[in-house]
C-alpha cells in the first residue's frame, strides 16, 4: 500500500490506517526531534504532537512533497518552537547530563562516549546549524530534500552545512578538552 493510498483511506474515514503512517515514520520523526531538542522527556511529546497535528490537518496534505519530507518538516518546526519555549531550561539540562555522565563514564564504551560527546556538541549549535546537520548527515536526507524541508535554497543548505560541520568540530574539541583536561 503506497503512502498516497494510506492517506486516501484515512481521508475516507479509515482511522486505523493511520497506525501504518505512525509505524512507518515514527523513527525518522523521533530521531529528528531527539537530535534537535535533545534526549529529554519533552521530545516524545513533541513527536506525538507531530502525528496528532498531521492527522487533524490531513486534508491539507496534497502530496506535493513526500510524506516523510512533510512529517519531518512538521517535526523540525515543532522542535524549533520547543527550543524557543525552553531555551533557558535547555542549557540547564545539558549541565545535568554532563554531571551524570562523569559518574557513569567508566561503564560506557568508547562508541557511546563518542556519541554522547557529539550529542552535547550538537546541543550547543544554533538551531539553524543543528537542523542542517540533523537532516543531511544524521537522517541522511539529500541536499534537495533538506532544502525542501527547511524551505531554503540548496545553496544555503550547502553553505550552512559547511559552517555547521566546522562549528560542530570546534564544539566537540572544546567539550572534549574541558572534559578530559580536568582529569
Amino acid at each position, binding site marked *: 500500500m503506497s503512502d498516497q493510498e494510506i492517506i486516501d483511506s484515512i481521508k475516507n474515514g479509515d*482511522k*486505523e490506517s*493511520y*497506525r501504518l503512517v*505512525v*509505524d512507518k515514520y*515514527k*523513527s*525518522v520523526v*523521533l*530521531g529528528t526531534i*531527539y*537530535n534537535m531538542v535533545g*534526549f529529554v522527556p519533552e521530545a*516524545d511529546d513533541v*513527536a*506525538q504532537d507531530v*502525528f*496528532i497535528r498531521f*492527522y*487533524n490537518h490531513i486534508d491539507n496534505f496534497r502530496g506535493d512533497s513526500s510524506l516523510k519530507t512533510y512529517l519531518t518538516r512538521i517535526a523540525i518546526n515543532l522542535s524549533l518552537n520547543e527550543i524557543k519555549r525552553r531555551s533557558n531550561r535547555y542549557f540547564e539540562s545539558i549541565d545535568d547530563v554532563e554531571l551524570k555522565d562523569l559518574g557513569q563514564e567508566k561503564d560506557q564504551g568508547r*562508541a557511546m562516549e*563518542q*556519541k554522547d560527546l*557529539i*550529542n552535547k556538541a550538537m546541543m550547543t549549535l544554533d538551531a539553524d546549524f543543528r537542523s542542517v*546537520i540533523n537532516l*543531511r*548527515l*544524521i*537522517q*541522511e536526507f539529500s*541536499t534537495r530534500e533538506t532544502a525542501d524541508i527547511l524551505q531554503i535554497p540548496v545553496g544555503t543548505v*550547502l553553505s550552512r*552545512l*559547511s*559552517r555547521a*560541520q*566546522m562549528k*560542530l*568540530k570546534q564544539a*566537540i574539541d572544546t567539550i572534549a578538552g574541558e572534559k578530559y583536561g580536568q582529569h
Partner: protein
Amino acid sequence: MDNIEELLIRSFDAELTKEEQHILDNALQSNPDLVDYKNDMLMLRDTLKSLKSEKESSVFTDNIMAQIDNTSLNAGLVVSMEKVFKKITYVAAAVIVILFGYNAYQSDEVSIDTIIGFEQPTLDQEFEEAIASID
C-alpha cells in the same frame, strides 16, 4: 586555512569546480594537518549517521492512536451537541412565536404588552382602583 577547510567540507556534499578541486588537491598534498582534519571530519560524519533513531518507544503508536480516538470522540460530542442545541433553539423560537401570536389574537390588539402576555386594565378597573386608593 579557514577557506580551505570550508572548501574541503563542501567537497563532501557538493561537486567542486575544476579550479576548486585543483586547489584542494594541492592543499591536501602539501598540508598533513589538512589531511588529519579531513579524516576527523569523515569520522565525525560516520558517527553522526550512527545517531539516527536510537531510541524508539514501543507504546508510541498506541499512544497516538488513543489520542486520535479521544480527539474524534470529543469532536463528535461537540458536533452532536451543536446539532441538539440548534434543534432546541429552533423549537424555542417557534414556541415563542406561537405564544406571541396567541396572545395578540386573544387580546384583539397588537402591542408589546399584549404580545408578551400583559393584560391592559379596562377603564372600569382603573376607575375602581382610583376610588379604592381615595378610600
